[in-house]
């Protein structure tokens, strides 16, 4: 299969940037839907895979050359983020893949839904909503898909901790509620 070039996309949308290490196009905020519609017009008719990736806040060590011309190691903090990744192919031209990434913060994670453009995102975006807690704007039917409706957390996040008891349901007893939150055994 021949490659699907990202160059025309970057030419059409100069504010998008190319992440060489990941081989993905980083979509600028609020432009995903427009880009997707443009891509669909170009024959990118098949969205294969949609998923999320959670990155925690991390300290990155970097070697830089300072003003005096000496090398030194600097530590900077990279804020946590969630990437929503789309793998796109063209069935018409039999080319691909082209990888799009929507970036969002970990608090109030939001992304634009591409379900109106590619129906194949429908269940997969619901899954990202369920497991990563990303709110998709414009999704026609955003509900939990694998976990049950009353579930409150997002298990695929890296900082997720398992509850003491999956079967546990809230009871009016506050003391037990507190114990549960601390992960203590309920007797």
């Amino acid at each position: 299969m021949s490659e699907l070039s990202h160059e025309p996309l970057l030419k059409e949308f100069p504010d998008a940037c190319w992440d060489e290490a990941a081989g993905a196009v980083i979509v600028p905020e609020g432009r995903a839907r427009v880009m997707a519609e443009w891509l669909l017009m170009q024959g990118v008719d098949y969205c294969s895979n949609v998923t999320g990736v959670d990155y925690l806040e991390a300290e990155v060590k970097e070697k830089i050359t300072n003003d005096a011309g000496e090398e030194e190691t600097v530590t900077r903090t990279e804020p946590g983020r969630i990437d929503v990744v789309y793998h796109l192919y063209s069935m018409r031209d039999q080319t691909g893949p082209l990888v799009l990434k929507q970036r969002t913060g970990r608090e109030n994670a939001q992304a634009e839904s591409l379900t109106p453009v590619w129906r194949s995102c429908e269940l997969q975006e619901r899954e990202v909503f369920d497991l990563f807690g990303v709110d998709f704007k414009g999704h026609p039917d955003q509900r939990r898909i694998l976990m049950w409706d009353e579930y409150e957390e997002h298990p695929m996040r890296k900082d997720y901790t398992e509850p003491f008891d999956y079967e546990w349901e809230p009871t009016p007893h506050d003391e037990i509620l507190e114990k549960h939150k601390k992960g203590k055994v309920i007797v």
Partner: protein
Amino acid sequence: MVAPNYELIAQDGLETSLLEVSMGPHHPSTHGVFRMDVKLDGETVVDLKPVFGYLHRNHEKLAENMSYLANMPFTDRLDYFNSMTNNWAYALAAEGLVEIEVPERAEYLRVIMAELTRLVNHVSLVGFFVNDLGALGTPLMYAFREREKILDLFEEASGARMMCNYFRFGGLRCDVPAGWLDRAREVVDQFPEFLDEYEKLLCENEIILSRTQGIGTLSRELAINAGITGPMLRASGVAYDLRKVDAYGIYDRFQFRVPYGEVGDCYDRFMVRMLEMRESVQILRQALDGIPEGEIMGKAPRVFKPKPAEVYGRVEGPKGELGFYLIADGTPKPYRYRVRPPSLINLTVLRDMCLGQKIADAVVILGSIDIVLGEVDR
């Protein structure tokens, strides 16, 4: 098909309302724990919501907490009919992270195993499908008789009938035992006879024709847009087969055709699978003829610890495009591990296909999609 607005029909002062039926999670036609919330007007489906997640075990989180290789047996449990192709898809993705050359013999054996798996899957699908139509037992038993022969081959090669865990990064776990290839050839040579018999029995059967033709039609445009893959996509008239398009492994060396349908109804989906089995037999014959002697394991690192990279590997599984998306971060565990499940994504259009059909046909339509809940729920 667009269903009329059935919200509430008031006629002659009598109010009628729609009937809501929850089909499943324990219903013989749902092939596992799967539920369809159906709204009915008489017998006609006016709304349908698939509900799943009953078998959810967060497979992806499990995989992110263990080493790359330790996860190989878990991929067997995704689509438990097709453990060999699951293994292959995962191995293919992981081999994209590091440079490993797969030896010639291993490549041939991979193709043989994958095509045998396709036979197993399609033959049981056809059996279950006819079962859903109401032909209880007999055709399914015929199908399972053939499936059993192939499962015996798997058992000899890998030690397990269904959870094979046979592939490794860079090759296979072990070579096939002596005489296995001859026995495989025997099974493959007998298979077309069974197909002839089966086609004679089913393909022109009047009941099957009237129950499947024109039922659950899926248009070509919707099929592409909704990311439908595998036999279901090809039944809608798109000859998109990753064995041809990507030519992963050594599929470019084999002569085979890609059958596809015209109408995209249940009959086409059924027939595409019947025809695909014949093509698989063709591939198997060529592979069994061409298989060389030699190593079955390439030079793979003892500890699988890839450099930071991202990779998406996909194969043409019997149910559709099975993809694995891996992000390595330089540790022996994957930072992100994602399965692209064809069964789940093929369910996207279930509602579209069922609207306006009879409730009994909804069962047939679900059967023709070919889902496995181990993969849908993960």
